[in-house]
């Protein structure tokens, strides 16, 4: 059986416990609130540089873009300007579409077999859900991230406030006997993030194909992000924490004058520690696709290789079979067959 996800789940639960025990029983607020966050950000930035730089160091010897549409050739043939880009501008548009709209994933299809009267037919259904949830996941994550900037800036920038207003546009105010949600206003992005990450997890779990290819390294970030979202949601809507205290802690960090507020609960430290772990984990894992997608040579190059020469920095001479050698091998036969030769036979 596939125990990858169990392992990852245990790892994330353990991380939560570490932070909880560390703060609640050992009183290590300073470690979890100051030392680790600083270390994590430093690691994140340095390791991110290191990884991207290690890619950048390797040259791009050949221009091998995937062409997903008609080439620009004869003037009267409509070229797919974006999917087969020949100009830098078009490449930028292609990259923007990839990065912001997940263009390629949007094409996703699902193959299935059908019995027809005369045999088997393979069909391809447009499969949008992975795209939908991937978009939902990334964008809600981004919004959640930006929203947290209210803790990092004073006064809070207008754009962040605008974003908050949009995010909490729909008032979800629901009072029941068990839970009451009303104030503070519900941010949709947090719920979408949790829903999307859950979908991505269930997909790995329930689709046999995806389960088969999934590794512990695939489940771990999902659980980690799920836990981050959950702790955040718990703090905001149910168990409450003193956000003035949270902001003063964060403010201390960003002004490089760390100070520990007293009234911030352990749940916050769990949340913070998980984020810390995510930051450290990020540059060493597949999450680096964030940086890598920019460098993907099948997408970020123009396709006009026949019109503009691409230079390979390490191009080296190779041994070839020259025409002279060739003619030496076959001169006699060539002359017999009436083929022209460079050197007449002696």
């Amino acid at each position, binding site marked *: 059986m596939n125990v990858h996800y169990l392992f990852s789940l245990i790892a994330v639960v353990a991380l939560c416990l570490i932070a909880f025990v560390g703060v609640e029983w050992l009183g290590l607020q300073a470690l979890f609130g100051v030392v680790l966050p600083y270390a994590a950000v430093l690691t994140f930035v340095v390791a991110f540089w290191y990884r991207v730089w290690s890619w950048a160091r390797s040259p791009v010897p050949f221009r091998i873009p995937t062409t997903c549409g008609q080439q620009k050739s004869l003037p009267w043939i409509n070229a797919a300007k974006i999917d087969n880009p020949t100009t830098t501008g078009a490449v930028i548009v292609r990259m923007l579409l990839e990065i912001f709209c997940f263009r390629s994933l949007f094409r996703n299809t699902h193959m299935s*077999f*059908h019995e027809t009267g005369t045999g*088997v037919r393979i069909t391809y259904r447009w499969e949008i859900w992975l795209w939908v949830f991937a978009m939902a996941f990334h964008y809600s994550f981004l919004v959640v991230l930006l929203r947290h900037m209210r803790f990092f800036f004073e006064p809070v920038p207008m754009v962040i406030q605008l974003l908050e207003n949009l995010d909490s546009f729909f008032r979800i105010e629901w009072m029941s006997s068990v839970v009451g949600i009303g104030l503070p206003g519900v941010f949709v992005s947090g719920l979408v993030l949790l829903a999307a990450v859950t979908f991505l997890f269930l997909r790995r779990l329930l689709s*046999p*194909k995806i389960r088969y290819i999934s590794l512990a390294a695939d489940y771990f970030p999902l659980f980690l992000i799920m836990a981050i979202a959950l702790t955040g949601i718990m703090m905001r809507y149910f168990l409450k924490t003193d956000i003035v205290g949270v902001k003063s802690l964060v403010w201390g960090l960003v002004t490089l004058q760390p100070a520990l507020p007293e009234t911030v609960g352990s749940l916050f430290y769990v949340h913070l520690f998980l984020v810390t772990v995510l930051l450290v984990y990020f540059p060493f894992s597949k999450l680096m696709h964030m940086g890598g997608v920019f460098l993907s040579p099948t997408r970020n190059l123009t396709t006009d290789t026949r019109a503009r020469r691409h230079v390979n920095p390490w191009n080296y001479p190779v041994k070839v079979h020259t025409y002279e050698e060739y003619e030496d091998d076959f001169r006699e036969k060539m002359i017999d067959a009436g083929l022209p030769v460079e050197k007449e036979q002696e």
Partner: protein
Amino acid sequence: MKITTLLQQQRTAILKKWFDSVADAYPLETSRFLKTQQDPFANPVGNAMTSGLEGLLEEFAKGAEREKLIRLLDPIIRIRAVQDFSPSQAVGFIFNLKKIIRDFINNIANAQVAQDDLARLEAEIDAAGLLAFDIYMGCRERLYDIKANQERTKVFKAFKRAGLVTEPSEDDPGLTVSNIS
């Protein structure tokens, strides 16, 4: 109870069992891969079979016609003939149905079925199995035919037309077509 009635009543259950038995016959890796989910046929290999088996069972319930059986069996067997199967695996799944139906009669449905009725059905299944074997062999023969003929039809024909087919000599550093086998 008439056996055809049984087949119609227990269609879903019998089909399920039959699917499972087919999944068992897959090579280890794929089989395991299939077993991890409720619908063992979300995989391309199995996918092709779902409706095929359903159609076959329907045919047996009605009293099979040879032409129709061939039409139903051909697409399944044609795929299995190039996949990872021994001949017995490729066609054997049909015979599994006999045991499944007997089990149903004895254990689950607890139904009384006329012996000659059952015998007739089993004979039909046997016939279908043999048909499947015919198809399988036809496919394999076609395959070997293609294998055997491809060089002749492509290379040698052209070379012969040009009168170029000669035995390669040992010391000739050049390599000739005969190496490309």
